[in-house]
């Protein structure tokens, strides 16, 4: 394969042009993906910093680290930053942007300039949010419940709401770009049933982004208007209804959680076959389950409102629908596991993250069953049980999927290998730190500790201390990849076109790819995951 000398001189998307203008005005989807990578990593650490402060405060029952108002701002901004500025963009904006055109044999997304616009909107939104944070912050909770947010909070609700509105626009445009690209720009011979499952997952995600985000947008607009002009749409003292806000808010925010998890499911569906040297088990089931999750995900929002004052019968309907939406996720877990049967398993870092994902997502998903059970939800809603549940899915699931994907495609993106031993170590640290942080929170929740509590009764302290200890370990696990990825860009082993021996069009071109992705546009005559035809790679060594 290519030697270091030849690769160093070959033109590719990173060295084609230098200078800040060539980056800030790029329309190359791969460069835009890297722009996003830098920005979302920044916001991940901002949100993570808030999380650390929260956990430090919760080391002791008394509120003794920060003031109550500050604490309320911390958890609000942790939520807003992590949800809107990290999780929602993460995989689609970084890995999706980079890979979707390549996986379907296209030169770029359908609308490259709109792709760049998406990034600028994200940056504008991010700056607005940062400004909001440093000039006082917001303390409504990321959920903005009324009438607190419209008539009682005296923090920067309007600015935060507008920042998220702009970020939502960015998300909508990304989704739009992906849907059109996947429909119209597939290479000849690439039928729907030959698409990688990563594409199916992003397609489903994009549908949700397109149809759900606008509802959040209008809801935030109405909240902003209400606050600015003293309207009463959500305020009972002025003829309005606070539950209307909750319905409108959750109509987006529930599907939003599927925006956050589906892409990482797509990542896992690429990693597991590669490191099992086997085609995926149940391709059709996994593809269709992504679509099913997207559709059913729109039908369950009021399971966040079982004790909010909705009618008994509404609650029952939403409960049963919530169980239906759990089925496709279960199907995926079984299919991924079955893929490993009689495979040829390698334990490279991406596969370790995939194992972690499957295990932790399973636990998080199973605890969703608890919450969908009406009788149980009454007790555990608004407690740490819910906090644990969604962190298992978001962090144990989505973030691990994201890290797994970053490691898997890092050679393609950068042309370098990350150091495998450090990769495996970091994966292990993340897994252990994560469980220590969040498992105790299930117990805390059932014990009755409510969420968003700055101070708490002494009997909850032991579990809180465990959780905080775990969070420090988790933080180390997250910092390590930052460090060694950066290190690898200079000192990492030069990567081959296909170091993992993976299936997929993106591996049929150089690492890093040329600006227009392929020297010659491919024509696809094979099924996805044709691992019977691809020889296994040389096992990636643990040195370096």
């Amino acid at each position, binding site marked *: 394969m290519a030697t270091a000398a030849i690769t160093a001189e070959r033109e590719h998307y990173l060295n084609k042009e230098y200078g800040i203008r060539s980056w800030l005005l790029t329309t190359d989807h791969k460069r835009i993906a890297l722009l996003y990578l830098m920005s979302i990593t920044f916001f991940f650490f901002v949100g993570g910093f808030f999380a650390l402060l929260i956990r430090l405060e919760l080391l002791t029952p008394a509120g003794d680290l920060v003031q109550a108002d500050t604490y309320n701002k911390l958890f609000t901004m942790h939520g807003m930053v992590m949800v809107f500025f990290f999780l929602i963009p993460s995989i689609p904006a970084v890995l999706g942007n980079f890979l979707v*055109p390549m996986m379907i044999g*296209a*030169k*770029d*997304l*359908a*609308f*490259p300039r*709109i792709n760049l616009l998406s990034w600028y909107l994200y940056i504008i939104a991010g700056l607005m949010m940062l400004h909001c944070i440093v000039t006082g912050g917001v303390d409504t909770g990321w959920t903005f419940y009324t009438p607190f947010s419209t008539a009682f909070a005296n923090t920067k609700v309007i600015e935060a709401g507008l920042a998220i509105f702009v970020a939502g626009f960015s998300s*909508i445009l990304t989704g*739009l*770009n992906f*849907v*059109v*690209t996947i*429909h*119209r*720009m*597939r*290479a*000849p*011979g*690439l*039928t*729907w049933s030959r698409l990688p499952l990563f594409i199916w997952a992003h397609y489903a995600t994009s549908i949700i982004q*397109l*149809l*759900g*985000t*606008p*509802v959040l*947008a*209008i*809801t935030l*607009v*109405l909240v902003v*208007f209400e606050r600015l*002009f*003293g*309207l*009463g*749409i959500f305020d009972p*003292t*002025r*003829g*309005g*209804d606070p539950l*209307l806000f909750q319905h*409108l808010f959750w*109509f987006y925010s529930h599907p939003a959680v599927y925006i956050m998890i589906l892409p990482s499911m797509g990542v896992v569906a690429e990693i597991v076959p590669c490191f099992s040297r086997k085609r995926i088990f149940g391709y059709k089931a996994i593809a269709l389950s992504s679509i099913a999750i997207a559709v059913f995900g729109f039908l369950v929002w009021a399971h966040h409102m079982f004790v909010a004052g909705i009618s008994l019968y509404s609650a029952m309907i939403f409960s049963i629908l919530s169980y239906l939406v759990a089925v496709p996720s279960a199907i995926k877990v079984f299919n991924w596991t079955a893929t490993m049967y009689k495979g040829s398993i390698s334990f490279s870092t991406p596969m370790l993250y995939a194992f972690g994902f499957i295990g932790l997502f399973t636990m998080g998903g199973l605890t969703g069953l608890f919450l969908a059970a009406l009788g149980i939800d009454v007790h555990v809603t608004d407690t740490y049980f819910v906090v644990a549940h969604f962190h298992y899915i978001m962090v144990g699931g989505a973030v691990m999927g994201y890290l797994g994907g970053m490691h898997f495609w890092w050679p393609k993106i950068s042309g370098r290998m990350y150091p495998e031993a450090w990769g495996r170590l970091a994966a292990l640290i993340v897994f252990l730190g994560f469980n220590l942080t969040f498992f105790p929170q299930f117990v805390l929740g059932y014990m009755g500790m409510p969420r968003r509590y700055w101070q708490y009764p002494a009997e909850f302290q032991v579990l809180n201390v465990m959780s905080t200890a775990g969070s420090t370990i988790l933080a180390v696990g997250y910092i390590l990849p930052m460090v060694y990825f950066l290190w690898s860009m200079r000192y990492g082993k030069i990567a081959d076109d296909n170091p993992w021996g993976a299936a997929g069009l993106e591996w049929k071109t150089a690492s890093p790819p040329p600006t*227009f992705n392929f020297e010659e*546009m491919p*024509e696809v005559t094979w099924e996805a995951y044709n691992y019977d035809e691809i020889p296994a790679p040389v096992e990636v060594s643990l040195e370096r």
Partner: protein
Amino acid sequence: MSDSPVVVEQHHGPELRHHFATVEQQRDASSLGMWLFLATEIMFFGGMFCAYLIYRLNYYNEFAAGSRSLDITLGTVNTIVLICSSLTVALGVRAAQMGKQKLLVILLLLTIVFGFAFLGIKGIEWYDKYKEHHIPGATFNADDIVHEYPQIHIDQSHEQIYFSLYFAMTGLHALHMIIGIGIFAFLTYEALKGKYGPQYNTPIEIGGLYWHFVDIIWIYLFPLLYLIDRKPLR
């Protein structure tokens, strides 16, 4: 779902962007993109329509009374203005397809004129509401409506919700109109440069789609806001 055909060197104008294989692919992609964007706009306005629906069911009297306080003549004129503007848009697309550049430019300009007419009339209506103290907020006062219907009890906070939704919905619609006018100004400028013709008129087509959509939103807003109950009073 058409896949792109095997790429063959094609004669194409400068309008073919390099990441597309053919002009057809580019046009299909642009068209699909605009339809999807309009779907998001439906969801965007949909949230407000949902709020409207719920409050109208619960506060029918106030909504009906508020509706009657709007000027139905101006509203009808505006509806006709917008429908005419959609006609000029449709004719413009056709003119572009037939290569009639001068006609295209005239039609685009007419569309913009209609757009401004709509906004002007809307401005007059809003000014009337301002004079009548029907703008929600600190200055809101619906005493006039209360006195107009002595036989029905009008709750002013409910009335304010009607007007909140009225201004939110017509306001966002007007914002979309302004953006539409901007888009059409750009299209007119490009048309003057001779950019559009039978071989390439996609921007006119998708700009037209956007304009038609904004028109259709109004077609819904008009009866919902103006025509709640115009039966003669008993």
